[in-house]
């Protein structure tokens, strides 16, 4: 199986403090990996570094995506190559209509890949299909990006983008935070519909609950900036019963 994402001995600092102390992780094409761990273990840092968020200093190690050095790329180049981060807290962008944003982003990615821009009718048709399946009303798409959206709506908007942009790697950062069970089910159904042998996912979560809906192939436990244990989906259930304390001991 081909490795899509290879994180090798990654060390990352934020403001002089090392958060990741040599993290190694390989995600093959088509696999869904869950990364679990207590608060402060470095889960979100990992997702931010993969997406290219400023403010993180990589002091050692590398990240390869389809064999290419991801750390050399700007965030927009990473997106065009097929990396998608579903944000834990999607930002509100007043004055930028969601529809305009979606079209601008999709066409920017296509342009970067040397593909032709979507025609307006094709784009609208596609957005309508996807938004319908995610229970996103059309009037929401006319509003500013995430402006006045509920927590569930914001997460569904992330899944909508995932469906439109068709990335090969989706990183879901705490997708379950702030969602009630119904909102979680809709978002998770949307994610499951996107599972494919050509697409990999990294599901970052604190709780096992999300993994009832998005069932992973591999589960990793992170603690203190490293992956400390990996296993099958049953590892998540073990953690639910025993907690993270066993990994917290120094």
């Amino acid at each position: 199986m081909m490795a899509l994402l290879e994180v090798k001995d990654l060390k990352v600092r934020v403001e002089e403090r090392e958060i990741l102390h040599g993290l190694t992780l390989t995600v093959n094409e088509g696999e869904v990996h869950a990364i679990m761990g207590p608060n402060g273990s470095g889960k979100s840092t990992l997702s931010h570094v993969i997406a290219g968020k400023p403010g993180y200093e990589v002091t050692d190690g590398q990240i390869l995506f389809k064999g290419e050095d991801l750390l050399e790329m700007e965030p927009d180049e990473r997106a065009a190559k097929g990396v998608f981060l579903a944000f834990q807290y999607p930002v509100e962008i007043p004055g930028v209509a969601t529809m305009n944003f979606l079209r601008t982003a999709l066409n920017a990615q296509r342009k970067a890949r040397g593909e032709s821009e979507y025609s307006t009718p094709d784009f609208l048709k596609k957005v309508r299909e996807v938004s319908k399946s995610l229970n996103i009303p059309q009037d929401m798409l006319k509003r500013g990006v995430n402006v006045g959206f509920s927590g569930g709506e914001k997460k569904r908007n992330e899944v909508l983008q995932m469906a439109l942009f068709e990335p090969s790697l989706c990183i879901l950062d705490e997708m379950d935070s702030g969602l009630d069970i119904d909102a979680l089910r809709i978002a998770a159904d949307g994610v499951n519909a996107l599972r494919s042998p050509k697409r990999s996912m990294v599901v970052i979560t604190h709780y096992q609950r999300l993994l009832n809906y998005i069932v992973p192939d591999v589960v990793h436990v992170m603690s203190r900036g490293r992956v400390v244990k990996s296993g099958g989906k049953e590892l998540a259930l073990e953690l639910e019963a025993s907690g993270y304390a066993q990994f917290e001991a120094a």
Partner: protein
Amino acid sequence: MNVAVAKTGGGRAVSDLFASAEGRLPGSPEVIAARREAFESYERLGLPHRRIEEWKYTDLRALVGEVLPLAAIPDAGALKRAAEAVKAHAIEGARKVVLVDGVFAADLSDVRALAPEAGFKTLRETLEKDAGLLKTASTDAVIALNAAMATDGVVLSIADGAQLSAPIQIIHIATAASASAFTRSRVAIGKGARATIVETFVAAEAKAYQVNDAVIVSVGDNADVAHIRLMDDAPDAVNITSQFITVGANTKLNLFSMTSGAAVSRLQGFITLAGEGSELSVNGVNLLKKTEHGDTTLVVDHAVPNCVSRETFRAVIDDRAHSVFQGRIIVRPDAQKTDGKMMTRALLLSDEAEADNKPELEIFADDVSCGHGATAGALDDSLLFYLKARGLPEKQAQALLIQAFVGEAIEQIADDGLREHVIGMAERWLERRS
């Protein structure tokens, strides 16, 4: 001390300028006398400088230095270049009135289409009989200079009850390099009229020129009027525009201005709410880069009770550019139940960009609601990262956020075609940036 300053280089240059221009300046003997008086007043004051409170942030002596000689009457070549500029900047469907280097250009204008809703004359024609148009209550030196030197302008009167179906667009075109154009216009809008007036300032291949424009607007009762000023002059030009606007009762007036050109510019608006029950909305956008200096100075005078005024100003400042917003709201002793607010926001795109905001409230009535707010800051990094993570390159992500930032002011333009035109101007400015 003032005398000594007035006698420095700048003052003498203008003196020569006036003497050499006198033969070209239209008007009856009475008008010429008024011009000479205005010129003497200017000469006493000299160009405004930082020690004059109203010009504190825009020191014309330092920024401009001298007033350039009057532009020549445009020849056939200049008019041909101007015709190209008209094509590029005309608003679709608008009736055009074109001034080239400060002179009315009949062949480029559609003044016949203005009748019967709007009467049209040139300033030149008007001054044959009447010196009134050269007089304003202002003691400002650049306005006195304008009165002395104005070669032409547009005198429009919109009939009572007229419902103009298309905007009237006054296009000021500069074709002459290293020369000045002085224009003065009057727009009188009748009772119950509905009209949109646009003023556009552009260059036709001209460089390093100066524009000094004044417009006197009166809006009758129960009218619904929009006045839009779009200044896109050459990057090394100077544009000083003064607006005097008087508003009647139960009237809606929307003012909008956008600055996306000129090395040094100042729009100074003096708006008097003189009739009760009127609503004034003033929106402005400054788009500045390199070392450009753009100043918007507004005085809103609530002279009567029960009026509402709203000012929204947005400045986008890149490189080492400098944006100035001075907003004064005056509430006269009788003007009870005044509701006046202004909000200014500056977006700084570089560490060396500068924004000066000076809001002032002068309130002499005791039952009013007035306020102001000002913010200045950079683009939000978290929004930028979100857009980049979705595939937008840095400049495109910035452009989208800048468009959203200025959009709040541009949205206030009611006419769809006109709003699209202004959005297009802002987009072109953003494209030139990247």
